[in-house]
């Protein structure tokens, strides 16, 4: 029996249409728009101005708080302007717009494809390099990686878990990265292990990627302390707490972080970025993005420079199919519909999904029939039907008692509801209100 997490979960159609498409490099676009807010936390502060020449990998914005990140130019060229434009948030936010000229890289970056397995840097140096390379969690949450790697005093980490689950339907970028950059990931994991001073790492991979599991097991035999754990296919196994439960049977208590049970979770994409940052001095300037959808001509996985408009990726996949109703940034479960295809790719973009009208539109909302399906699928053991009602009626204190803040927004409840009730929509609203109330209390 394969392992999985213990509570709830669903199994939507996998639809991994682009699983066999090798990663292609998307040509550098004519202009890129690099938002200064690509991570959780305070937006970065631009340090370039209009007319400045920049090279690929040059620092263009620095962090403005503890939870914040460095941002580097993904192209070489001239800064056209610093303007506000609509990004993934759906609102206009500041972005640095750069006109591309040539492809001139910072001299310090090692662009050779040779694998460097020696890790001379000390743990402190590694964490500093990761921070300065602007690496954030590439699974989608975009939490600055260096913070997770420096556990607060008194907390001990004894195991590193690498997330190769990719439980979102349609998405295949992590799958392809594991197949094509397996060696780099292994070294990246070694670096992360060194930074955390742990001797064990588990790479969790869902069983719908047998080729990746096989490939990674062969590679892992060459490195000490890395174990590959094939997992039963179950959504949302890629959630940190679910993955920890699945791999090492430890449960993170309500309101606490994974470090509470001695674990740190990083994505395989992050491990690759860490390898490149530490061994090749290459900051986070590009990432793999899946472009997919049932009517898409050529579902593919693209290596994209950050700041490239979504429309360029869609073009590379054969253009927008006629029956498209929604363009989703991310996967179908947790992704967000984009209001325009001009939105730039950021550190957190894992996929672009073009959904045809038939499956994209919501069904009419009906009354709750008390079937309790939402309760049985919730991976956090919450009661989504109740949380929705509490949020609708603005009973925030009760919502807090019902642990609304534990919700990981996986969308299993909305997916499973036979009355198509907007459960997660209201729970999200409740989370933001309760979060505000809780923050005002601690002030």
């Amino acid at each position, binding site marked *: 029996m394969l392992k999985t997490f213990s509570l709830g979960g669903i199994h939507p159609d996998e639809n991994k249409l682009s699983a066999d498409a090798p990663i292609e490099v998307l040509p550098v676009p004519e202009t890129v728009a690099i938002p200064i807010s690509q991570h959780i936390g305070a937006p970065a502060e631009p340090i370039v101005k209009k007319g400045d020449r920049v090279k690929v990998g040059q620092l263009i914005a620095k962090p403005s708080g503890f939870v914040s990140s460095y941002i580097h130019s993904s192209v070489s060229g001239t800064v056209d302007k610093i303007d506000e434009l609509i990004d993934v948030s759906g609102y206009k936010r500041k972005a640095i717009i750069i006109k591309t000229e040539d492809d001139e890289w910072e001299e310090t970056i090692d662009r050779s494809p040779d694998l460097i397995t020696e890790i001379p840097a000390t743990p402190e140096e590694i964490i500093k390099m990761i921070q300065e390379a602007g690496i954030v969690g590439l699974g989608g949450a975009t939490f600055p990686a260096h913070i997770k790697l420096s556990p607060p005093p008194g907390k001990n980490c004894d195991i590193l878990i690498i997330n190769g689950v990719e439980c979102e339907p349609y998405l295949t970028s992590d799958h392809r990265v594991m197949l094509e950059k397996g060696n780099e990931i292994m070294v990246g994991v070694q670096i992360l292990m060194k930074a955390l001073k742990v001797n064990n790492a588990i790479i969790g991979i869902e069983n719908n990627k047998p080729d990746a599991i096989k490939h990674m097991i062969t590679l892992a035999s060459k490195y000490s302390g890395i174990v590959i754990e094939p997992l039963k296919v179950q959504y949302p196994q890629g959630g940190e707490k679910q993955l920890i439960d699945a791999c090492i049977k430890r449960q993170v208590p309500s309101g606490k972080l994974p470090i509470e049970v001695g674990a740190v979770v990083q994505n395989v994409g992050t491990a690759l970025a860490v390898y490149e940052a530490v061994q090749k001095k290459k900051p986070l300037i590009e990432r793999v993005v899946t472009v997919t959808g049932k009517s898409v001509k050529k579902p593919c996985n693209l290596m994209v420079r950050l700041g490239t408009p979504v429309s360029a990726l869609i073009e590379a996949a054969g253009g927008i199919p006629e029956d498209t109703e929604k363009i989703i940034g991310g996967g179908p479960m947790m992704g967000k519909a984009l209001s325009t295809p001009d939105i730039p790719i950021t550190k957190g973009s894992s996929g672009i999904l073009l959904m045809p009208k038939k499956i994209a539109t919501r069904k009419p909302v009906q009354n709750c029939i008390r079937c309790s399906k939402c309760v049985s699928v919730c991976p956090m053991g919450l009661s989504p039907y109740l949380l929705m009602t509490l949020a609708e009626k603005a009973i925030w204190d009760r919502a807090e008692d019902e642990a609304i803040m534990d919700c990981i927004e996986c969308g299993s409840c909305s997916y499973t509801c036979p009355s198509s009730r*907007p459960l997660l929509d209201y729970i999200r609203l409740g989370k*933001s209100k309760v979060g505000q109330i809780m923050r005002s209390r601690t002030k």
Partner: protein
Amino acid sequence: MNVVLITIITLSALGATAAVILYFVAQKFKVYEDPRIDQVEEILPAANCGGCGFPGCRAFAEALVKADDLSGYNCPVGGADVMSKAGKILGKEVTPAAPMVAVVRCNGTCENRPKQNNYDGAKSCSIASALYGGETGCTFGCLGLGDCVEACQFNAMYMDEKTGLPVIIEDNCVACGACVTACPKNIIELRNKGPKSRRIFVSCVNKDKGAPAKKACSVACIGCGKCVKVCPFEAITLENNLAYIDFNKCKLCRKCVTECPTNAIHELNFPPKKEKTAIETAEEN
């Protein structure tokens, strides 16, 4: 027979003792409550709308009794009438507050502000606004999902299906401010009702620069500053590409209304212009 007698006597004795104890306990723990609180509460409208800033009419009555000075206290539902009655009961001076009314500062109708995408999520402005800026190019304007109408207890608002914007029924509006709080976009504002309900306001909250604002909505405030220059009373300020008319300084001369190139400044309840318009058009020509 005996049993019945004993029962009656015992119970009566118990009752009498308990009554005596209760009497003394009640004396000992008596809570004095100002009788005027009840009197004031009696004359308040009992709408419990919270428009006064207190949780219900009773709390407002308590606050009025406690207060030394009644300035700053106002029951928006009852208005000057109720406040002067309350003042009489309490023997305190009441300065009548100017009557207010809610105004919707967005004129982004379907024609003025074309749709660029479709929203099919939960029918709630606060949910939609957490997701994105809205169906049109303007990320500041009305989302049209009716959180304000839902919040109104006085039947003073409805959604106009043609324009997709909320409409305020002036006669019903008591300026309790429930819609102001409900609107996640901060579009609705309480403004001075003005003489004969006449008032002028900027019907736009778009803080974008002129070009993108105009592109998204044909009646957006583009922050050109013409109204600021034309206003003889310095009532108009321009901040973040958006003009705002201070209703305490505005003398309702209507110069700004004709000056505004995008018709973003609205006048309400004025009689139609006659000679003045003719003179002005002559001047322009």
